[in-house]
């Protein structure tokens, strides 16, 4: 069917149908399910001073117990699995590995390239034991040469292989910017459609724990202008595995942004094969008063703030946008039409970040539905300092989110 849309909500068609051919029919666990909305990672521990810690061992403490009034979010145990199947619990990096392993088994064209991904097992253990299982030709240890091995991955993808290129830290991929921008993004277009580049470029980025300026970069803001690539950011083990699998199966180049601090999140995920739609946003918590758009680690700061807000009587709607390029303006638009107020919480810097683009996109498309200007909370426009206190002030904290929502909802 064809539809011609004029005016607002132009990108609505993008997500209004599961247009991706690789969504399997038995895909029961769609992120639009109601119970998926309520899940909260079980290993998040909320401290009384508002800072968030991630519980690294399996004894997960229920975050909600520390708050007086439980939020509308339900308990987290079996949220993501269907009722018939209990699913299995694992950490986010294990979920990524599971997704990668399943795809490598399913398709012999999938290979992994990166520094220390093979024998070492990956610096964040995402590719642990894969080299033993699949051999050195499919899990390749490269020398420290990002520009060329990214280029090689793209060249291999031109012939039909499906490489997964890992940047040990996203910041190192700046060395491969030329290859990613000119060759990865543009070859499909400049060749008139002759070549597709089914490559996945992934790696951890974001502000960690005092890693220093060069290792705390948020590359999504630099890559977002490149035409021809898709960008997704995972935030839970469930969507990490789903997005990894969908990215590998996609014919387009996909950059999968992981976050250094989220690798040890634990969650129960379904046993059956599932993927997540690459262009879809995830409704984390439906609400009425204000739409909070976020992605990656900031989701947890937002959920943290959401508990405080609920206690104060607000009803925020939290959406994890997941798809950084293109934006899921359908889900976002519907939410804006409902709440009329938007707060964007991101880890990118204010200048030229994802939030800046999202603000522009929402203003252009949904201006009539907004009761107040969009508030965009981003990191400060500074190199990330080493000192712990300074680093904390660089990034948006839950208390700031609470204040912003209160201000907006006056």
């Amino acid at each position, binding site marked *: 069917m064809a539809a011609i849309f004029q005016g607002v909500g132009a990108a609505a068609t993008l997500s209004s149908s599961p*247009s991706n051919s690789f969504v399997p029919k038995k895909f029961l666990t769609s992120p639009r399910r109601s119970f998926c909305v309520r899940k909260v990672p079980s290993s998040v521990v909320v401290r009384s001073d508002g800072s968030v810690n991630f519980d690294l061992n399996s004894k997960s403490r229920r975050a909600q117990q520390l708050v007086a009034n439980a939020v509308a979010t339900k308990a987290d145990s079996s949220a993501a699995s269907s009722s018939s199947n209990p699913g299995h619990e694992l950490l986010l990096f294990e979920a990524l590995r599971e997704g990668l392993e399943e795809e490598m088994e399913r398709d012999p064209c999938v290979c992994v390239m990166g520094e220390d991904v093979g024998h070492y097992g990956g610096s964040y253990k995402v590719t642990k034991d894969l080299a033993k299982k699949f051999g050195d030709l499919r899990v390749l240890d490269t020398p420290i040469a990002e520009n060329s091995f990214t280029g090689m991955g793209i*060249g291999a993808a031109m012939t039909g292989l499906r490489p997964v290129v890992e940047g040990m830290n996203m910041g190192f991929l700046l060395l491969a910017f030329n290859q990613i921008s*000119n060759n990865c993004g543009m070859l499909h277009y400049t060749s008139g459609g002759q070549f597709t580049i089914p490559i996945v470029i992934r790696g951890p980025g974001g502000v960690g724990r005092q890693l220093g300026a060069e290792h705390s970069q948020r590359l999504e803001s630099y890559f977002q202008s490149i035409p021809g690539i898709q960008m997704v950011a995972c935030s839970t083990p469930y969507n990490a595995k789903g997005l990894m699998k969908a990215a590998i199966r996609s014919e387009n180049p996909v950059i999968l942004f992981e976050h250094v601090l989220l690798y040890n999140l634990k969650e129960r995920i379904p046993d059956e094969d599932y993927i997540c739609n690459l262009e879809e946003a995830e409704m984390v918590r439906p609400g009425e008063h204000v739409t909070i758009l976020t992605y990656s680690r900031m989701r947890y700061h937002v959920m943290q703030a959401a508990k405080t807000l609920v206690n104060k009587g607000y009803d925020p709607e939290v959406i994890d946008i997941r798809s950084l390029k293109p934006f899921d303006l359908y889900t976002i638009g519907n939410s804006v039409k409902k709440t009329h107020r938007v707060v964007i919480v991101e880890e990118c810097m204010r200048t030229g970040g994802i939030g800046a683009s999202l603000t522009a996109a929402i203003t252009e498309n949904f201006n009539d539905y907004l009761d107040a200007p969009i508030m965009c909370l981003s990191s400060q426009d500074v190199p990330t300092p080493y000192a712990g206190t300074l680093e904390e002030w660089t990034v948006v904290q839950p208390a700031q989110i609470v204040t912003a929502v209160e201000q907006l909802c006056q």
Partner: protein
Amino acid sequence: MALSYLRSSSSRSVNLLKPLSSSLPLRRPISTDTTPITVETSVPFTSHQCDAPSRSVETNPKELLTFFRDMALMRRMEIAADSLYKAKFIRGFCHLYDGQEAVAVGMEAAITKKDCIITAYRDHCTFIGRGGTLLEVFAELMGRQAGCSKGKGGSMHFYKKDSNFYGGHGIVGAQVPLGCGLAFAQKYSKDETVTFALYGDGAANQGQLFEALNISALWDLPAILVCENNHYGMGTAEWRAAKSPAYYKRGDYVPGLKVDGMDALAVKQACKFAKEHALKNGPIILEMDTYRYHGHSMSDPGSTYRTRDEISGVRQERDPIERIRKLILSHDLATEEELKDIEKEVRKEVDDTITQAKESPMPEPSKLFTNVYAKGLGVESFGADRKEVRATLP
């Protein structure tokens, strides 16, 4: 103009088994003649870390005439592109390959269409060598939809997937890691084919080249890096850009071979040797000593950094087409008149194609948004101003 190669050949049988070239008393039908002729290359090969191949190249009349015709076609095509650019039918960048035709033609003679070739922006003739048609070339140069990249690529983005020609790249040196990736895929799929990654003397100083070479040597990839050394990186002579202009030695642990790039037969021999080597021992570097008559691109007159005497000197002494012409004439494979007829025919073909290309249509406006993504997004067209969108839902 009927080209007739038929001559009486009664005494042919005497000479059939003679391997060495000798002046043949009578003509034969040349177009299908594959009697081997052995020719000595005028310049020996210089090698680095390997044994140079022999100077005696086996060829045959059919191949020599194919060389002549193909090179004449490429030469005419480039000169026609020059005029088209000056008449403003071709815009932007236009990098011409005339003078270097022997590299494209000699390489094709040594390999199959299953081997991959990837080159930089001086790609018009390499595209023709890979089986591209003249119409695709001129249409793409003029931005018409009949072009090989549907008019969306331009001079620097010629690709032909079905004959494994991977382009056509504008950023200097970026195609070499891509080429090593192609070799990796060939090794992965166990194809027994090789990849030729071409670059220039200017690109030889790029770091990503050495990175890719290191990885290729480590993983034993069937990658052949070919440096088309035309001695000038745009306006900078090689002695001003490279501390060590012996590009074939730059691989250090990777073997290299220096080849006279104006001699199509030497190029053929070197590429054959390189293919065998790469399939067994991993990467090898070939340096083709060649020359371009035009400047770097159409905006460069080509005479501010070199003398006109140098250009005409090379044209007189080393021109690849003249060399093949002399070879054909000395072996009595065709008359001068026949060769001139071939050139006239080629010229007419180019002119006709240009006329056809000039009349072919420009791309449709809706094509602006196609091929940004592979069809996974399900949207054919997406308005940049987000106000008007035409979406076809699957």
